[in-house]
């Protein structure tokens, strides 16, 4: 039995991939779990998804379930991740459902005209509001969500 374990140990230390698996994946994960066994869902999500998660939760708290949120196009740079983060509407939808999301440059998406809120990222959105709806905000928070108030509605 001892020789078998020794053989497995040699295989692990001899192959980088296996060494990486045991140290980085297996033991480091078990160590985190042992250290913090009672983290809440939010705390775990914050560890993994960082400020993207905080931002999307902020948007959730500040919009009704029926909201249609206009998002900045993917080309807009921000502190959030492009793919696995708050800049992706599919990623956001996971947390914001049943709210609907649409990029501001999705011209053929009928949701765009029904937008009730706008997601401000890196101050993108203020000019969009002014140009499209004539709404001007004096206070320009770089990251927030704002209602779109159109007189006709």
């Amino acid at each position: 039995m001892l020789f078998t374990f020794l053989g497995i140990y040699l295989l692990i230390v001899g192959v980088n991939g296996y060494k990486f698996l045991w140290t980085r994946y297996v033991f480091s994960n078990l160590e985190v779990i042992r250290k913090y066994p009672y983290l809440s869902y939010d705390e775990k999500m914050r560890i993994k998804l960082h400020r993207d998660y905080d931002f999307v939760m902020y948007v959730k708290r500040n919009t009704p379930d029926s909201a249609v949120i206009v998002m900045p196009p993917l080309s807009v740079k921000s502190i959030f991740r492009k793919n696995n983060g708050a800049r992706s509407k599919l990623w956001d939808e996971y947390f914001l459902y049943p709210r609907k999301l649409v990029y501001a440059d999705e011209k053929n998406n009928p949701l765009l005209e029904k937008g009730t809120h706008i997601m401000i990222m890196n101050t993108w959105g203020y000019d969009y509001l002014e140009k499209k709806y004539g709404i001007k905000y004096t206070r320009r928070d770089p990251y927030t969500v704002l209602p779109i108030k159109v007189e006709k509605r």
Partner: protein
Amino acid sequence: MIAALFALVYLYLLGYAFLIFIQFKDNFPVNFALAGLTGMGLTTILMFVLEVIGFAISPLNMILVGMLVIVLFLYRDLRRKNFSHWQNYVKIRLDWRNWNSMELSIMLVVAFLWLASFVKNMYWPVQAYDSVAGYDLMAKVISVEQTLNVSLHRFKLAGARGIYPPQIEGIFAFFYLMGSPSAKIVNSLFFLSLILLFYNICKKWTTGTAAAFFTLLLVMTPEMWAHGSLSLTNLPAATFGAGGVLFLYLWWKEQQSVHLVLSGLCLGLNTWTRSDGVAFNLAAAIVLFFIVMHKRHFLPWLYHSLLSFLPFVLWQIYLKIAIHAESTERFRHELFWDPKLLNTIFNYLKVLFFNTSLYGVVFYIFIALFLINIRYFKQNWPLLLYLFLSFIFYTIIYYQLNPEVQDSIHTMMRTSYKRAIFYYIPVVLLYSALSPQTLRFFNWVEVKYQRAILGRS
């Protein structure tokens, strides 16, 4: 917790009822693994049936239709009041004489690795992008809207993963429907089923130590272990694919038609998980065709092909008619010759297959054992032919991708093909484990070991 337990009981009851219906019987681990796989597969098929006939996918409907199907599966035994053999499906017979301490110690490491993956899986919530923006998102919405044709499709919020076949999002949705706050256990069950099937089927033709060693290589494959705790489709699809090939091999060796049914079903569920898995089904169909060709008895080939391709065809029809989307839009339909593209693909393949950080030494061992056993290559020719054909067919899929619709070939190879290699790993390891020189080597090791034990005592 209770909701998740209820969902699990439902799945396994359905799976065991199916195994009783097709009169398949093996040892407890194989029965358990197959009950899980078929239970999960049948549950999503029932969801699809409810959807097609116009019923809501509600918890009540799922329970009622599940109970009805279980009764139908068990009808033959219920009518004859023949229940006594049911206990054989769940009876655990631990015969320690079949184990030696080498095998036992390797299997302890395997068990530890699975358990570590399970603990990690249960601890972290869903956070992988493909799951957050795809499978788990779809599952949550399916469970709220109680239909597969969710509103996300209408609002362009389903994305590319929204048109994946319903196996993974469906089974996640089933857990949410039953009231479970998480469906993460599903991938751990797939990982467990893969381990149990591989080890037990491998052990039928090789020594216990060899079976345990190659199972260890399977579990310890870094990328595969990582996927054991991610809510993605790749590991489940590879599990179904591996099940299909393992049972096809079992049928080739033992000629029991029930194995062919299971092979067809597993391969069918493979394309019910990922449509690109059809390349592997095509390879299996050709291998089976060559096997049956000698006997000129094509009926097994026909029903195997029907089982393995029907889910793929049904989902494509459903996509076109109900969701108005086609997964084939992502491919170039005309044949073309692009040596530069081919070169790019093969360069990536070289890097991927022999990257020990991703797949450990699996492919190095396979090539070494293939060369060592070259004069016996006819002995397990169906496995080699399957590997060759599936590699060609699957690579053609990437060659035919439409770069205007899909991500670039570089991204696709780095992210997507990388995970598709899971399909090859169990088959490559099975071939390695069953090759004559491996058998000779492990027999020698076991004899030496026995002598050492006897000498000591």
